[in-house]
């Protein structure tokens, strides 16, 4: 595949002082753009055997139903030509409805839910689509500054069809009042690029009286994929 340079303002700023831990962790040198055929033509092989029965239903990991608002999240993974990224591994993780992660380092004084771990993974289908059922995550404080609260989000990890498409990002929910105050979201200079991280409510994906639906399409870098997807 071919990887064009990314338009200025699209990637977040590697050094973004309002997000304090970027200051000593973001590389200071620009990425070195190189020609290397392997990363743009091959990838790790993700097969269905890595998937577990309830990996796409995060509400089915406990002995009973988790607390909170049950939702379904779905979307298509595409490349820059708009072609579906098929058979591609997607991992998701998130906090529970009270804003607490199932993680030893999360010390937020909100309750864990014994029926919710917030971990999932799946492969995209022939249309590039993924779909999983979960609980709407809550906002949570993170200590970066006074009254630092993250907007509700779900973490996404994507492997694409070639190695250089690898991406980790976060999906947000529409009309979150915390967007303006979140230095992680605001580390992305381009307003349109920020808005592409916001899912949209979908009546079409809503499932009867069971759960509301949210759509979140993802466009990975790369164009001119070969007909077989590699």
């Amino acid at each position: 595949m071919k990887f064009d340079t990314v338009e200025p303002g699209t990637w977040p700023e590697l050094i973004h002082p309002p997000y304090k831990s970027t200051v000593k962790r973001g590389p200071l040198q620009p990425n070195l753009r190189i020609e290397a055929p392997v990363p743009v033509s091959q990838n790790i092989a993700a097969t269905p055997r890595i998937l577990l029965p309830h990996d796409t239903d995060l509400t089915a990991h406990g002995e009973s139903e988790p607390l909170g608002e049950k939702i379904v999240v779905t979307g298509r993974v595409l490349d820059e030509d708009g072609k579906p990224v098929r058979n591609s591994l997607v991992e998701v993780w998130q906090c529970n409805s009270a804003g607490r992660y199932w993680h030893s380092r999360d010390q937020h004084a909100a309750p864990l839910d014994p029926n919710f771990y917030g971990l999932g993974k799946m492969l995209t289908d022939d249309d590039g689509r993924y779909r999983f059922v979960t609980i709407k995550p809550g906002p949570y404080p993170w200590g970066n500054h006074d009254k630092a609260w993250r907007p509700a989000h779900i973490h996404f990890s994507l492997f694409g069809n070639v190695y250089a498409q690898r991406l980790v990002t976060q999906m947000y929910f529409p009309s979150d009042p915390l967007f303006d105050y979140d230095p992680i979201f605001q580390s992305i200079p381009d307003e349109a690029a920020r808005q592409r991280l916001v899912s949209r409510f979908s009546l079409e994906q809503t499932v009867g009286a069971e759960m509301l639906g949210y759509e979140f399409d993802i466009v990975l870098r790369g164009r001119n994929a070969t007909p077989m997807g590699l």
Partner: protein
Amino acid sequence: MNDASHKITTSQTIGPFSHEAWKWATDATLPGNLKIEGPSILVGGVIHDGDGNPINDAQIEAWTPDGAAAEAEHAIPGFRRVPSGADGEFSMRVPLPQPATRGEPVMYVTVFARGLVKHQFTAVFLEDDTGLAQSAILNQVPEARRATLLARKTGDGQYHWDIWMQTEKETVFFDYA
């Protein structure tokens, strides 16, 4: 120019809480769970921030495309995922494709961490690879910075390679064209 409807999705930090979700691949990476046919090497080091402090919540992924065939039974052949430890340390055992004198990376590496808003791609070469002078990748790297991509031999089948996010030792990170 791209069609406006297919502008890329941008990146966000992995944050500090990825470990449970990423554990399935970390577990598959543990040496006891690997079945590598043929020679392999252990590559280990420490990931440092701009003050030289260890980064204890990074995730390091490695990919050895030429080695995937040697471990077809693996959950994801040729793939490794290791969270950095309390002292920023990491290590992984990877297949060593033959001949090992090719000027090719022994592993392609992707780095994630809290405070790193976009993953960083890099690659590791072995210092005793006699093909380094002909390396198509290294020859695109300014000479003064090439050493940041070389793993130092510390013993039989053992190599040391550190990651530096900043300072004069800053690792070369790539944008693949």
